[in-house]
Each structure stands twice: as structure tokens, then as C-alpha cells.
């Protein structure tokens, strides 16, 4: 066991973690943040995307101990029913949600993009979500939603 400290969704935590524990397990099992989804366990699908110190990471490929001292944002920290984030609202309004399993990862990939580049082109949006698979094949709506969110956020 190893003791680590990290900040998740604005809250500081000190946690005992097993050496072979992954960040996704820490978030889901220790903190109950089940909005972090596991699709492939090998960094292909992006369902487990979270933002770690401003960068998108696949939380299935990050070991829990590597998150020591970091600041993590999951979908639960972005916005909730009372205080919804413009990217989340745009996904609802445009119809970018189907089965919903890729949705948290897509929204966080979009958030990381818009934080760095408030006015991305369509190509830049597509590149930013290129690590996130949608098997319902709703990519066009997702791109439109991010484009709409960009207008609201500016």
C-alpha cells in the first residue's frame, strides 16, 4: 500500500492505494465517481478520459500512484443538474448523446480543448476528440455540440 494525496473535482484527498491500482479504479471504486467509464482498458476508446493538470489522459493507463500531487477533473466535477456547464448543455441541445457511454470522455476532451483554444476550427475539434470512440457513430452531432459550446463560452 502507498499513501498519496491528490485533488479531485476541487476536493483534496489523502488515500491508501495498492501499488497496482489504476487511476480509473481509484476514481470509481475509492471515490465512487462512476461517470468515469471503462471501455477497453488499453487506451484505445477514451471512455475513461479525465483531465489531469489540464491535460486529457486515459485514466486506465495512469497508475494511481502517478496521480500523486495532481489535480483531476472528472465529469462529476464539471457541472451537475443545478449548475450545468455550457458544453454539457450543448450536448443535450444538439442531440449529441445516444448510448451515452462515450459522452463523459467526449465532454472532457472538448473541455480541455476549449480551455486552451477558445476558437477551434472544425478540424481542430475533430482532432481533439480523435482519442474518443463513439460506437453509435454520432460524431457529427458531437462536433456540432462542441462548436456550439465554443460560441456560448466566448
Amino acid at each position, binding site marked *: 500500500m502507498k499513501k498519496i494525496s491528490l485533488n479531485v473535482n476541487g476536493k483534496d484527498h489523502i488515500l491508501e492505494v495498492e501499488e497496482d491500482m489504476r487511476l480509473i479504479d481509484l476514481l470509481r471504486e475509492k471515490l*465512487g*465517481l*462512476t*461517470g*468515469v*467509464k*471503462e*471501455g*477497453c*482498458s*488499453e487506451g484505445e*476508446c477514451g*471512455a475513461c478520459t479525465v483531465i489531469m493538470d489540464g491535460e486529457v489522459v486515459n485514466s486506465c493507463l495512469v497508475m494511481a500512484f502517478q496521480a500523486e500531487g495532481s489535480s483531476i477533473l*472528472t*465529469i*462529476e466535477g*464539471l*457541472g*451537475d*443538474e443545478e449548475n*450545468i456547464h455550457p458544453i*454539457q*448543455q450543448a*450536448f*443535450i*441541445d444538439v*442531440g449529441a*448523446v*445516444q*448510448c*451515452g*457511454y*462515450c*459522452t*463523459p470522455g467526449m*465532454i472532457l476532451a472538448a473541455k480541455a480543448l476549449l480551455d486552451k483554444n477558445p476558437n477551434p476550427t472544425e478540424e481542430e475539434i475533430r482532432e481533439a476528440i480523435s482519442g474518443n*470512440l*463513439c*460506437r*453509435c457513430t454520432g460524431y457529427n452531432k458531437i462536433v456540432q455540440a462542441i462548436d456550439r459550446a465554443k460560441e456560448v463560452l466566448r
Partner: protein
Amino acid sequence: MKLEVVGKNILRIDALSKVTGRALYPEDFYMEGMVYGKTLRSKVPHAYIKVDTSRAEKIDGVIKIFTHKDVPNNKHGVVFKDHEVFCSEKVRRIGDPIAFVVAKDRKTCELALENILVEYEEIEGVFDPIEAMKDDAPKVHGDSNIVYHFKIRKGDVEEGFKNSHVIVENTYKTHMVDHAFLQPEAGLSFIDEEGRITVIVATQYPHYDREEIASALKIAEDKVRLINANIGGAFGGREDISLQIHLALAAHELKMPVKVVYSREESFLAHSKRHPLIMKYKTGADKDGKLLALEAEIIGDTGAYASWATNVLRKSGVHATGPYFIPNVKVDSYAVYTNNPYAGAMRGFGATQVPIAHEQQMDMLAEKLGMDPITIRLKNMFKKGSVTATGQVLTESVPLQECLERVVEKMDFPVGEKEAY
């Protein structure tokens, strides 16, 4: 009449819970005192098996290892009851379920799986559906590998080919496809406050699942409760039983909540695939490009289990002509068992594969006639009032011609000109 829904953009009722990460999929449910399950699966495609769980049972933290001996009725399946909950004597494909370990945590489950001894006495398998149709082929179930034969007979194809100016004959093959829905199978089963076996799962058929669980456990259907959680994609891949009966059996026997989460690899092993088809086509047309005859033999590899093969291969047969009127048609479509991964429902249900064949035939007929690919289609396509090969009169909207004409216009396609050929 004022329409309230049709023509309006309606927000999905589940969208808010999905964008906030609060939507619960089966693996997101946790319960007090919950234990974990994991499935032991066959590593070979065709073998007689002997299973020894004694060593694994002694591992600290293992609660119970289920095999076929623990299942009141070991047979299940959506159309034919050809699946076994756990293989009893024989495995028929790589990935066939043999045993189900329940233990205090996932690591113990994995250790226990490694300690179950399976003795495989391998037997000759069959992996090519054409070989599998022969009398002397190894049999996957019973004494024939042919699960289903669908026929269409309309007019006289011999006469149609005799009168044809051009004939095109080819064999086409399509491959197996996995749905790869993004959320791998998962579930949680427990006994609820009314004593019912409750299974939380993501499924396309909660009513079928309930019936199959009740039948396998030999209990009344109203003693089983299915809760369909959010479903992370399906596309036909959740139309068969995967972990539902394993979970229900374990919760029923052990009276404790049992959870299973498949890895992506296990998900690939556990559920159906799209049927690979072999399509032998012969199509004839007259000098003007009017279709006169079609003869097609379609062989679908359904792998080790039938699943929805009858419905899928029927649909392939019904759609074999494509959207074209043909006066003389002979179609034979078959579903055949092999020792490959089993095939079932996947988007299009047999109608997705046949255009590979019927559309290529159209292009090649056009080429032989010196005609462009649009003109030959416009001459033959279904219109309102057309009669299909199965005798259906198309009385409702058939806007195919309008669609093709608009595509031609948008593409600026040079219909009838030399460069279009």
C-alpha cells in the same frame, strides 16, 4: 390536427443524466456485501472436456464454483435451445462457458480460474460452412450442421437465363463483424426484499432474459426481476444471454449480491457476431438491360450456435434481389453450424450483406451491355405497385427513383454518356 411531437426537436429524457455522468450502467451498481464472479471459457474450438474444480475450491476467498452440475436446466437459446449455461460434455467454440467462479474479490476470481483443471480431448472441428454442409463433416450439434434452409421460387429461372442477352456469375464473401458496443457486458444480481432474483443488466430483451433465467433455474417467471440499466450500445449484440443466467444462478444459490464485469477481450468472446455470408449469384438481363432472372445461393456461417440465424438468413434471402423487379427468381439461403464464434443479430439482420453481391452484379451487367450503372438501375428498380420476389405488392411509398435521380443531379453524373460507363 396540431402535431406536438412529429416534426419537432425533442430533448432526450436521459441526456441530462448522461452528460453529468450520473447515468448508471450495470457496472456502476455497488451493494453492501457484494462478491464477484468470473467465467472460465474454452480455449479450444471443439473438444470433449473433463473439469476438476477441487484445487480452485480450496483457495482462500473462493465462495463457490458453478458448473453444469449446478444448473437445473442447462439448455437455453433465443430461438433454438442449443446453448448450454455451462458446457457439460463438449465445447463447440473458443470462448464457450465452462464454469463460473464466485469469490470475495476479482483477484481471487482470477487466481481460482487459473487453478481449475480442464482436460480437453480435442476432436476434429469444422470452420468452413461449405465443408460443414457435407454429410461426412464433423457435427457441431446432432447429425446435421444445416440449421435452416429458406427457399424462394418465382417463375422459371432456366427460361429467364435462356432469354438473357448477358449473364453475370460470381461468388461474393463477407466477413464476420463484432458490434464492439462501447460498454462491455456487466451485471449485478441479488435477492430483493420480496425474495425475487433480481438481475441488473444492459439488454435488448429483458422479457426474453427473464424467461431464459426462469427456465434455466426451473422457477416461476414472477420470481425473476430484470432491471434494464442504461445500455452502452448494443447493435444486436445484446440479443442473446451472456452473463444473465450465471449471475441469477449465483445470487439464487448463495443469497448474496454477485457482480460481474467483462473485460473487452471477454466481451468479444461472449457475444454474437454478424453472419459471414458466401453468396453465389447468377443474374441475367436482356439487350435493353431489363433483368430477366436471378439465381442465388447464400450460405451463412452461424458458428457454434444458431442464435437468430433463421431470421437473419431468411432476411438475406428475401432481400437477395435487391430493390429490383425480376420475373424469374430462385433463392436458397442456408444457416450452417461451424466451430467458429457464433453469429446472431447485428444491424441490418442479414440485409446488410447481400448488397455487396446484388449491386456488384448490376455494375457488371451494365458494363457488359455498355450501359452506365445508373441507367440499368432506373430500368429495374422497385416503384409503387411493384411485386417483390416473395410476392409482396409495394403499395406504400417507394421513393427510390426520386432518391437516385437527386443523387445523379447533385453529383452531376453524366448518365448515358460514355465516361459514365
